[in-house]
């Protein structure tokens, strides 16, 4: 993981949050669309907020696909949820809306969860694939070798064939 990749993940978060809020702002202006009047959806696109929202969501999709090309799904997905945190912070500190204690707890849980993930490896190392994060595999091999040595006699405990 280098700086450019963190930038892409930040893009995933920001574009998703900004796109969703533009879209919901625009849809409140155009009014609700019923299942029986789907042509309303076509006119909704003419609303500038909706149009910007769609462009931002396209940007989200592009960054999301980019991130999935070099990181696990279970690594990227929590990053998308940081968008909710971003929206709540904007609501509190820019729009000066009230954020309930329960929502602050939600913010804390999401942030904690994302922090948990970010501390780990970004990509599962499969034996046939070679990635840029080999330190994890090396550490796992070292751990396996150490426990093998501890568990068995040094004579038969040579860590041959130990493979993560």
């Amino acid at each position, binding site marked *: 993981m280098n700086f450019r990749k963190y930038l892409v993940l930040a893009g995933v978060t920001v574009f998703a949050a900004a796109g969703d809020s533009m879209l919901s702002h625009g849809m409140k202006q155009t009014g609700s669309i019923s299942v029986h009047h789907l042509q309303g959806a076509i006119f909704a696109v003419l609303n500038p907020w909706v149009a910007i929202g769609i462009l931002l969501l396209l940007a989200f999709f592009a960054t999301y696909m980019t991130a999935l090309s070099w990181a696990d799904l279970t690594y990227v997905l929590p990053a998308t949820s940081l968008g909710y945190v971003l929206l*709540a912070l904007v609501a509190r500190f820019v729009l000066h809306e009230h954020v309930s204690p329960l929502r602050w707890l939600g913010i804390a849980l999401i942030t904690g*969860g994302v922090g948990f993930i970010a501390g780990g490896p970004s990509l599962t190392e499969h034996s046939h694939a070679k990635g840029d994060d080999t330190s994890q595999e090396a550490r796992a091999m070292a751990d396996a070798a150490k426990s093998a040595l501890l568990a068995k006699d040094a004579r038969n405990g040579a860590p041959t064939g130990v493979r993560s």
Partner: protein
Amino acid sequence: MKAIYTWSAILVIVFASVVGDVLLARAMRQVGDVGALRRRSGLGVVIGRTLGNPYFLFGVMAMAVAFFSLLFALSWGDVSLVAPAAASLTFIGNAVAARIFLHEKVDRRRWIAASLVAAGVALLAG
């Protein structure tokens, strides 16, 4: 009766988005590191290879199904129930599906993170 409709729609949303996410992730794994590919062969090759990947097309279709089920669910149930329920169940479903179908190493760290995020999303959107 309406509750059954709403929850069935939520389950369809969750199922479709999990299928979509797994297919898209698999497509991008096949395409490979997009940044490196772009430097090597240009943006056109990246876009062509992504759009030409069958997993990608099916993934986008599954996402479309999820989107329209969301519209139906919203017409039957409250947004304060549908959005957080669908989002947080999708997180859990994705962790399971990524482990089974993508062979990702979902260790204890990632399980805890997925549960924390799912709980947080439920609280935040509720």
